[in-house]
């Protein structure tokens, strides 16, 4: 189902990339500044993925501590612990869906974090 949604028109919409690449470049410091590409690229690809899928970006490059970005990082930490603990029966994606679903009612990122660590 999803495969046919990756149409040429959608894949080749370079305006989408340009907008975020511009933001990325504006965050890159020159003059001997050590840029943390780990942080920058995680935000960059999240901003592109959310705009591509929802039509609106979460804008995490400009606001890296956004609740959404943190929640995603948390789910991934927990998910990976599950995978290593041997619960690899389900596909990774299924795991993340279950977890996001589990967290759906937990709104503040604080209680979210507490919950995640007890689960792991």
């Amino acid at each position, binding site marked *: *189902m999803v495969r046919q949604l990756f149409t040429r028109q959608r894949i080749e919409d370079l305006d989408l990339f340009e907008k975020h690449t511009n933001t990325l470049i504006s965050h890159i410091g020159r003059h001997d500044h*050590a840029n943390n590409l*780990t*942080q920058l*690229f995680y935000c960059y690809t999240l901003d592109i993925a959310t705009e591509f899928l*929802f039509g609106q970006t979460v804008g995490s490059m400009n606001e890296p501590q956004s609740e959404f970005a943190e929640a995603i990082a948390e789910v991934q930490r927990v998910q990976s612990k599950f995978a290593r603990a041997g619960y690899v029966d389900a596909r990774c*994606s299924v795991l993340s*869906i279950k977890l996001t679903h589990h967290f759906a009612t937990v709104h503040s990122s604080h209680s979210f974090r507490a919950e995640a660590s007890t689960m792991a």
Partner: protein
Amino acid sequence: MIDAYIQSYIKRTLSLNPKDIELLDKSSREDYTFLHALAKFTRSPKKIRDEVVNLLFASRDTTAVTLMWLFYELAAKPASVRRLRNEIISAVGIDRLPTPHDLKNMKFLHQVVNETLRLHPAVPINIRYAVRDTIVYTTSDKVKGRPISVCKGDAVAFSALAMQRRDDIYPPVSPSFPPADVFAPERWDSWTPRPWTYIPFNGGPRICVGQQFALMEIWYTVTRLLQKFEYIERVNGGGNVEPMSVKAEIVGSPARDVLIKFREADLSKEMKN
């Protein structure tokens, strides 16, 4: 929290009836999103959520870590940076926006990305389930080439990370083909991997759906950054010069933060040339 965020978009999308969505599609307006297209296939909020969450997770980190590894490796190969930048400048100049055609035709750019994905496949270990009873033949010394039986439903784990660094499945080491564990984009000048010896996106019916999108995103990003910057340098945090190890969770990320210095190209000088 993530669910709540996504649900608000799904709700908005499903509030439109299929006819409206069709109209929106025809208008080719910018607010016709992936979600709208998905809603043409299914009206089930759960199905839509599952697909979207899957794509969000599958696309975001894999692309991010590939870009990190690419700049980490490239920063230690000034000759490759120069060659790549020359290719980019001669194809698109210093400030023109690249077109899909440009991006698809930059050979060395592809080599740099392919080499990054060979040495650092974004998903280092993966699993497939057997759809029927079968036998896997092996050449590994440890099991003396004995075949392994796999029953229907069995999980088979495999590692692109381990395989794509195996000297024994690639050409012998030579001046044009450095050892498999070395980052060398130039090895692709005259080399195409044999089928199934290079599988960063996997293969078969379940090959990565986002492959073309991901490649386009990476090609675009590298091109724009190297148009702007001519020099990149690795910063070794706290004097740490150990080679970067991989943190293999679901996605294989660099174990430490990738710190890079950029130096802007002197555009006035380049204009004259």
